[in-house]
């Protein structure tokens, strides 16, 4: 029997994460709208304040650090909308989280198709 909370390198978006992350996730959800994406780009700090992000969340977003965003309660489905604003796709954020170059990360994906 696997334990949900002890799978190596695998964050679980459960109630504990949700309780921490609501403001950050709500901000990311707002990025379904082009107007909101533009407002964020125009003034990141003001936009984050308007959504009441915690200092930890603000710092994680400012530093573009996906693992820190997750630690601060972010869920990857919502964070992907934020990453899109930074021009980062799922392979870019995969590379960042694993500490690989994007080229190495893509090769890693291919290598698993055996």
């Amino acid at each position, binding site marked *: 029997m696997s334990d949900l909370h002890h799978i190596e*390198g695998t964050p679980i978006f459960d109630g504990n994460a949700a309780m921490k992350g*609501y403001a950050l996730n709500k901000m990311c959800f707002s990025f379904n709208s082009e107007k909101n994406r533009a407002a964020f780009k125009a003034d990141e700090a003001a936009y984050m304040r308007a959504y009441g992000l915690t200092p930890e969340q603000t710092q994680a977003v400012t530093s573009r650090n996906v693992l820190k965003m997750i630690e601060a309660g972010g869920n990857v489905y919502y964070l*992907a909308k934020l990453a*899109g604003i930074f021009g980062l796709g799922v392979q870019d954020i995969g590379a960042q989280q694993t500490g690989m170059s994007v080229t190495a990360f893509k090769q890693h994906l291919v290598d698993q198709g*055996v």
Partner: protein
Amino acid sequence: MAHIVGGLATSHVPSIGTAIAKHETETPYWKPFFDAFKPVHTWLDQTKPDIAVVLYNDHGLNFFLNTMPTFALGAAATYANADEGWGIPVLPSFTGEPRLSWHLANALVDKEFDIATCQEMLVDHAFTLPMKLMFPNAGDRWPVKVVPVSINSIQHPLPSPHRCWKLGNVIGEAVRSWKSDAKVVVVATGGLSHQLDGTRAGFINADFDRFCLDAIVDHPGSLVRLSTAEIIEKAGSQGVELMTWIAMRGALPNEVSHISSTYHVPVSNTGGAVLLLDTASQPSAAPERVEHRVEA
């Protein structure tokens, strides 16, 4: 009574939309995945389903954490796609079949499924891209009506694979008891193995995916018995989208004909898979099985 003509399962990653928009479907990276739909198109031409019941998972377009249903059943007259934030083209709206939706709602609540009914509902790439793959030439007139069913894959606790299987059972029974001569295809979208978050991001488990492609046909019990934790361990945190395949299989009869399956790695960060099952009791021929691997 309505008749379930078959089941289709497919991956649904957003970059499929980008590949279509950028006319990259014939590139070496993408061609094998798009080619997987050739037998599907042949089959759709032959069976001509009227309605697609689509089991998928919303990724934060229609549902947010303020109200996150475990099972959300569409009961709208039309379903629009919309901007998801990452720039894939918005596809034309779909026509619902709310009479079937309410028939399903009645059956599900009667069997103690505590669904949310959704009389207005945006459908995201997980719904729209499989439809585009099935009907690439549809333009803005999709040839089927739809009933979307979204399974929570974001906020734990997630429904267990066994619960999703039983959801499929009830949907299947209900479709078969619906007073209509409609032909219904059950579509599952999601998976197979992938993980977007954490230091294990990029995890793909081709062995497990191949096991899934076999098991879902003839011995789905071996998937239904897995816990959510086991699926995540074997298939990555987003591998839980396998729940949609399990629910789809639960809606079909025990005996199915395996028409085709394709496995193609990677599609974006995902073990890309397409599987087509027909409910005709006698297999017409050996299934067409295709395996592809993107060369580095």
